[in-house]
């Protein structure tokens, strides 16, 4: 199956990834090939009665409700590329307006 340039751009938008114009043809071709390769699983008919397989514990464990935060060796202000008055800073949303959420 062929993934079109438009589809690649649409997926890239969903994934918030910049894809340059010149990278597009190769990327579309590689993705098409990979998707063709993985699509061979459709050769196997749908299986009735096979339990879905989830590795790990069968049921979720619960934690007691108590204030017991995991300690940080240093705080957000040290991690952040941009920080002011206790807030993380990012450039404002441009393409659309959000309300204070």
């Amino acid at each position: 199956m062929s993934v079109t340039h438009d589809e690649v751009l649409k997926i890239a938008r969903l994934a918030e990834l910049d894809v340059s114009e010149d990278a597009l043809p190769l990327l579309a071709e590689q993705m098409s090939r990979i998707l063709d390769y993985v699509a061979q699983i459709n050769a196997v008919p749908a299986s009735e009665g096979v339990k879905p397989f989830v590795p790990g514990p069968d049921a979720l464990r619960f934690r007691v409700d108590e204030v017991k935060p995991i300690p940080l060796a240093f705080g957000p202000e040290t991690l952040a590329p941009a920080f002011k008055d206790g807030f993380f800073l990012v450039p404002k949303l441009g393409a659309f307006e959000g309300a204070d959420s």
Partner: protein
Amino acid sequence: MTDPSEALASAKATADRLVKAKRFNACLTPVRELRKALVTQAQAAHPSGVLYGMPVAVKDNICTLEFTTTCGSKILEGYRSPYEATAVAKLKAAGALMAGKTNCDEFAMGSSTEHSAYGRVLHPFDKTRVPGGSSGGSAALVAAGAVPAALGSETGGSVRQPASLCGVVGIKPTYGRVSRWGLVAFGSSLDQIGVLGRSVHDAARVLSVISGRDPKDSTCEERDPLRLPNVPESLQGFVIGIPKEYFPADLDPAVRRACDRAVRLLKELGAAVREVALPHTAYAVPTYYILAPAEASSNLARYDGARYGPRFDGSADVRALYRTTRGEGFGPEVRRRILLGTYVLSSGYYDAYYRKAQQMRALIAQDFRNAFDRGVDLLFTPTTPSPAFKAGEKVNDPVAMYLSDIFTVTANLAGVPAISIPIGRIKGLPLGGQFIGQAFLEDEMLEAAYALERVVPATEEA
């Protein structure tokens, strides 16, 4: 080791060895920082710890308080984690010395460590070849004798495959055996921290220490740490299955010879050997390359330059910030997998790809259960279809690269443990053979590995 002076000596000797191993580009930690950290740790470590003074290198996708955690990516260049992985904390509590961070394929995505933003890792025996991946740095350091053991991580074989190519031991535990807290997630339902070691004993000791319950990981089973078995006298009573799908007609004859030799030795050790079938094996790689990228596309969404890591743009708007940071911060393999993963989860494709792959995974896991239910204790297979390939050979052909995982991904999909040990040489290059065990029965797997390790001529041509 019980004496602080011994630990200090170990620290210094390790630093020296790591300096010598610099040329492989396997260690990402600058020498001065490394030396200082090793000495500080040696002074602080508890002499009563079972790994007291043992240097263990840590793959750079595992969070440490010492050293940066970059995951081999530009998008985490210089990132210092404010907390450490449970596995690392356990090693330190046992007196081990964290011997720096090792180079890896970016975010553990790759089979050659050519996809690191910090340069490829050289195979210690042949610098034109790859050490495998994604835990190539860890494997190379162990193979070069710089450290006796190193932590790596597995999603589709990233510990066993480099172990095979570098001629060291690589263990992947049962899913849920080792806490993933602090392991930077790639494919969450497949990821496990694994161990590379110069011997089964070294690797198993480390595995034992890092295993066990952790309330901080909801997918980690409530179990005591792994208890190590003794080296058995013989393998009398063991039934070892040879899955025919792992010995296809076009298997490299040298690989086949090496495996045949190993199987003969297993029989000589007293094991019963029989052929088994794992009929859905052919679908394992395609299944893996739907599920792993899907999970990765979601796990890597947090890397956007907003709260940590470098920013790549002085954008006026936040979407531009995300797109540029991610577009420039991620390398081509990671970008490809994120796009692939996004695609297979997207509306209209979810059923045909993701949901179908989940069903395939169940069938693959069922294959293993069926084999084990029929009285087989362990499986034995080649670890990789070939020894170390040349750098640049597969890096531009994603599908060809994916096929290096052909014998390893099944264990990750089924969540079962597996171990690769060196079983021979092909034109001087190492090759591994693997045991695949039953869930949470690592001890049986280790017994077989110990026994084979003792007798197999790992440095002889197959």
